[in-house]
């Protein structure tokens, strides 16, 4: 069956398995942080954006307030709004699909869609990765939440390392020229410098703002040279 998949569907399925299994780590960490099983599952089913979910339970687990958890999760979710704009201009979905597409708009579905060269493949990539991650992520969240402390520290199983490699794998294909590499270096520096200074989740937004500033400055410099 897998052999009949198009390249975009294969990529989407791979991502769904790799990232979905990581849901076990979220489920276990969430109940350890003090949420109950239902709250943990609600986050995966309704919020459905891993970074924000980890930010939410991270703040609660470290003794922060519900309001602080809300703010960290919401700020980290802002990038999904950017993804929505990108996907709309790339795929031009019919209006009736947008409510469902919006819920499935996350790092993995966006990355799978934007990595394809043709419209139909982009659509297939988006839905395979989006639906695939949704099913896997929610199933493994429940398993992790029920297993809870019995699983021990998820880090011992290398699940935090899986997340690192997963994000690097999404970034890698975009580092194909000098300009994006410079952007990445700037974003990495902004993140490292601000990590100890501001609450969890915020460095990503600072890095995004610095990236946009750098991009605008480079663009203006390029225009000045052209004139």
């Amino acid at each position, binding site marked *: 069956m897998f052999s009949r998949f198009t390249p975009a569907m294969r990529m989407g399925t791979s991502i769904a398995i790799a990232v979905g299994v990581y849901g076990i780590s979220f489920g276990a960490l969430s109940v350890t942080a003090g949420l109950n099983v239902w709250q943990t599952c609600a986050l995966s089913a309704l919020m459905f954006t891993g970074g924000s979910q980890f930010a939410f339970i991270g703040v609660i687990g470290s003794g922060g307030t519900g309001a602080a958890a809300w703010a960290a999760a919401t700020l980290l979710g802002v990038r999904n709004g950017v993804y929505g704009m990108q996907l709309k201009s790339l795929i031009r979905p019919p209006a009736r699909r947008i409510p469902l597409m919006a819920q499935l708009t996350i790092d993995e579905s966006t990355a799978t869609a934007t990595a394809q060269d043709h419209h139909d493949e982009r659509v297939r990539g988006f839905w395979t990765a989006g639906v695939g991650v949704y099913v896997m992520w929610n199933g493994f969240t429940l398993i992790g939440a029920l297993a809870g402390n019995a699983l021990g520290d998820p880090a*011992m199983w290398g699940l935090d390392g899986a997340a690192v490699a997963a994000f690097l794998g999404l970034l890698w294909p975009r580092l194909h020229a000098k300009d994006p590499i410079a952007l990445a270096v700037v974003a990495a520096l902004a993140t490292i410098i601000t990590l100890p200074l501001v609450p969890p989740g915020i*460095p990503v937004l600072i890095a995004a703002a610095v990236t946009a500033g750098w991009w605008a400055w480079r663009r203006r410099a390029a225009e000045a040279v052209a004139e």
Partner: protein
Amino acid sequence: MTLWIWVLGACVAAYAIKLAGYLLPQSLLDRPVFGELAGALTVGLLTSLTVMNTVGKGQGIALDSRLLALAAGAIALKLRAPYIVVVIAGALASAIGRRAGLP
């Protein structure tokens, strides 16, 4: 009980943000400058997420076995391994590091 309110409130906010991106007019999104900015922002966000997952620990930095995962992932990507192999390489590297006694 109050935690439930923040859980559901954060879920509503997350969906509203996702939907907002799709509600911008197509004419605005069609401007080439917008595509360039969106591409730059994607690189910035994915880089930041990678770095944060590698060295971030609460409000601070911790250098531990996740650095091995980053290196293993990079090597796998350099060898053009499929995505799932890249992720497994990262998991194995940090699991081996931890079991060998590294932080």
